[in-house]
């Protein structure tokens, strides 16, 4: 663990390590691809994805003008998919950030203070972990109404306990480490101990958790949108699928269905690979096995 932490000193070092892992390479490339696509969406032969087109362009199969064909309002599916990647990535990252933030905070508090605070916090965590995820998300999304912010909120509400639990157990072992006591002995306050001493040491773990949460969030957005709980005015992959499923032309217009499905799966796969790679790299002795 220590040896690995040594490597993590610099993010660069970590990424170098990640790049020695095949899955890490694949995951990172997939992510980079989508990130570039999302960033440069307006330059990628796209039109306003919500703009309806001419009547004669309804449900066109892929052609020169419409690379992935059109939907039932003659909207360009290529553009929708490109812009949809923004929604998925934004939801993925914001939800992961929020989740990890809340989870880490709770985990830090519970792990560091112990005693009654821990007892209460961990009971809450246990309670949340007992709740069935998808139904809870569905119920909350139904109650809160459709918007991507609600999706982010819902995903975070449902996922933070896992992070809290992981972080807590890490904190439990960290706080027993001598440097924490040494720092306390010097006279460091609790907040300095938590945020100055312990937090930097759970950052890699947070990173690993965040990667996992991104997949969860992308998945959740897609499912909720597909089930009709997304925001129909936001172009997201799940929403494209939802419209395709509702239109009754899925079987006639596979070009409407396949691209969003492919994108959802690829992006989730990318993050799953990345997550597996990160946790592989996190394993103590990884470098030794690899002979690095």
């Amino acid at each position, binding site marked *: 663990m220590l040896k690995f932490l040594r490597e993590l000193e610099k993010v660069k070092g970590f990424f170098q390590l990640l790049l020695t892992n095949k899955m890490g390479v694949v995951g990172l490339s997939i992510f980079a691809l989508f990130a570039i696509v999302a960033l440069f969406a307006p330059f990628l032969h796209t039109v306003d994805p919500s703009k309806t087109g001419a009547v004669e362009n309804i449900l066109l199969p892929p052609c020169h003008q419409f690379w992935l064909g059109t939907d039932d309002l003659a909207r360009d599916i290529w553009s929708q998919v490109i812009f949809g990647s923004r929604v998925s990535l934004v939801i993925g990252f914001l939800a992961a950030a929020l989740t990890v933030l809340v989870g880490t905070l709770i985990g830090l508090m519970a792990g560091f203070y112990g005693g009654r605070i821990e007892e209460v916090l961990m009971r809450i965590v246990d*309670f949340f972990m*007992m*709740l069935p995820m998808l*139904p809870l998300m569905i119920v909350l999304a139904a109650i809160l109404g459709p918007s991507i912010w609600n999706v982010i909120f819902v995903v975070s509400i449902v996922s933070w306990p896992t992070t809290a639990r992981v972080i807590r157990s890490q904190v439990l072992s960290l706080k027993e480490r001598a440097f924490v006591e040494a720092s306390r002995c010097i006279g460091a306050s609790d907040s300095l101990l938590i945020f100055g001493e312990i937090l930097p040491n759970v950052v890699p773990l947070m990173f690993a958790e965040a990667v996992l949460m991104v997949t969860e969030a992308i998945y959740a957005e897609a499912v909720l949108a597909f*089930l009709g709980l997304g925001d129909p005015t936001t172009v997201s992959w799940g929403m494209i699928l939802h419209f395709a499923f509702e239109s009754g032309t899925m079987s006639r217009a596979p070009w409407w269905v396949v691209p969003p499905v492919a994108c*959802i*799966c690829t992006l989730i*796969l990318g993050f*799953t690979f990345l997550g597996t790679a990160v946790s592989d790299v996190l394993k103590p002795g990884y470098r030794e096995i690899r002979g690095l």
Partner: protein
Amino acid sequence: MALKGFASFAIRKAIAAIITIFAIVCVNFLIFRMVPGDPIRMMFRDPRITAEQMQLVREKFGLDKPLWEQFNCYLTELFQGNLGISFWQKRPVLEVIADRIPQTLLLVVTALAIAVILGTILGAIAGWKTGTKIDSFILGISLTLYSVPTFCMGIIFLLIFAFQLAIFPLGGISTAASGLTGFGYWKDVLWHMFLPAISIVLWYGGEYVLLTRSSMQDASGQDYITTARAKGLKESAVLRNHALRNALLPVVTITGVNLAFAVAGIIEAETVFSWPGVGRLVYDAVMKRDYPLLQGTFLVFAVAVVLANLVVDLIYGYIDPRIKVGKSE
């Protein structure tokens, strides 16, 4: 001493479960009081419902009382097994849910059983041969499958096998009004179950592969495996008698929990294949904003998860004495 230890452990776990269930009940009650809008108005889509009629219904459902009293009432009813009346179906929620449970169990249990068997075998092979080509192949495949949302998988299957090739039915649990009975009927059900089951199997199978693989890796590094190998046992015997046996423990745990979670997790599959189970019921309840039903299904799911966890904990505690000594940190 051993029994006493286990009994104490069991009681502690049971009390924790009861507290959790109670908390779920409370949250469940409160969440549905946060619902925007007037539930009574939602109950009747007709706009001509008068204020008096609404008041009557409100009284009937106890919605005119203060929150605390409503909660009290809710608890009392709950103890009597009454989860309220579905807005949409106008009959007891419990009855509505109970009608759907057998179909869901049929699908889930079948799919999960296949997933466990396939996943464990492949995972064991991958874990045993860590680092080889077979391992990379199995791992790659299962990670990929694990990344494909069930509903995406379902849609693709539906498109290919039901719509394009027309070799599987378009959805549902059986051929409508077939009049089939006995063996013929079950054959028909199996035929309908194939696609939804496969899309669940592929997803959960991936999870089991990953799980078995990693616990297999842990197990194969343990001393007893080395010892067994050193004793000159055949690889296959070591695998079967020692490594696999120990690697299966987490599989058992996760299966118990999955069984409960899967009931919820197959919402996607049931929706895509219009399988008339609890998952589809949740979807319908959402679409129809049938809050009592939604509340009921949610409670049933949550309690199922808690109970499954409890059972798994107890079995685990009984099998593995370390858990008892270790207690809850």
